[in-house]
């Protein structure tokens, strides 16, 4: 039975991931985003075109993917993830890709996936830089193990973000495709390459680096998971 991959945020990261997973075929896709396609998205989000401007991203993405692959199972929800709807929107997902663009959403996704023990592929990109890691709750480091509680009040204004640094299409696309690669491994029952590792792309030099990550026993999100 095909596995289900939920992609939260269908933009610079999520759109290329969704397109690639759509081509992979052997999965159920669930696309989550409440945002609309904007002209400024088009350079970085090749899944969308001018005719899609103003329409909701999740539905448009689902339609484009199914136009190419009519037999593929693609659901979409035009909602923003919250504590009120997370259980419903993510129910039954075998893997979740974080394509969000703010620390609050990333923190929430990490907490939810750890509590639910759902594998999460954390991805982020800003300016020339991108990074991703695969979180296997209870087994590999989660986002809170790496970067703490990511409180917006403390760090939000100072962490790299697209508003301040801009975003380069090939960088965010490369990270999105790498995230899809991790999702495919998980859905196939293989060990994901980036569990226990943080992969970092320097888009200016085109160099990837890999850093070892470790779980923190005192981590508020996953410390108590065995």
């Amino acid at each position: 039975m095909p596995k289900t991959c939920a992609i939260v945020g269908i933009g610079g990261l999520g759109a290329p991931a969704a397109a690639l997973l759509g081509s992979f075929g052997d999965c159920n896709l669930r696309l989550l985003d409440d945002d609309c396609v904007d002209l400024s998205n088009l350079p970085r989000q090749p899944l969308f075109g001018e005719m899609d401007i103003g329409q909701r991203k999740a539905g448009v993405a689902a339609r484009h993917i199914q136009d190419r692959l009519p037999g593929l199972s693609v659901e979409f929800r035009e909602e923003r993830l919250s504590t009120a709807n997370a259980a419903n929107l993510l129910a039954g997902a075998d893997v979740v890709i974080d394509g969000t663009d703010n620390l609050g959403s990333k923190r929430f996704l990490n907490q939810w996936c750890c509590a639910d023990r759902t594998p999460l592929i954390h991805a982020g990109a800003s300016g020339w830089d991108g990074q991703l890691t695969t979180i296997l709750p209870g087994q590999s480091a989660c986002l809170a193990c790496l970067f703490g509680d990511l409180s917006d009040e403390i760090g939000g204004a100072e962490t790299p973000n697209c508003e301040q640094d801009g975003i380069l299409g090939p960088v965010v696309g490369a990270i999105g495709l790498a995230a899809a690669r991790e999702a495919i491994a998980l859905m196939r029952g293989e060990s994901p390459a980036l569990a226990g590792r943080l992969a970092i792309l320097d888009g200016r030099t085109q160099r990837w680096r890999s850093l070892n990550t470790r779980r923190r026993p005192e981590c508020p999100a996953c410390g108590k998971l065995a």
Partner: protein
Amino acid sequence: MPVTVKIPTPLRKFTAGAESVPGEGANVGEVLADLESRHSGLQERLCDEQGKVRRFVNLYVNGEDIRFLQQLDTPLKDGDDLAIVPAIAGGRD
């Protein structure tokens, strides 16, 4: 050969665009102080008022997180690699 400090893109404005810079010091704390002496403003982005590394920034010595080594006292020797890795918020738009 001193320590090589890898600078993430958002902080390269403090290093005149350099992706890596040399650092001198026997441990991570000393290297950060050395960086600040030559790239003013960098340390404030990395450490809080108490001198602790900000939680959303990770420092890695030869690929290992210093929080699992000896924190700012993690020893360094010539030729070592110190990477500065902040959390990244962006990616959707």
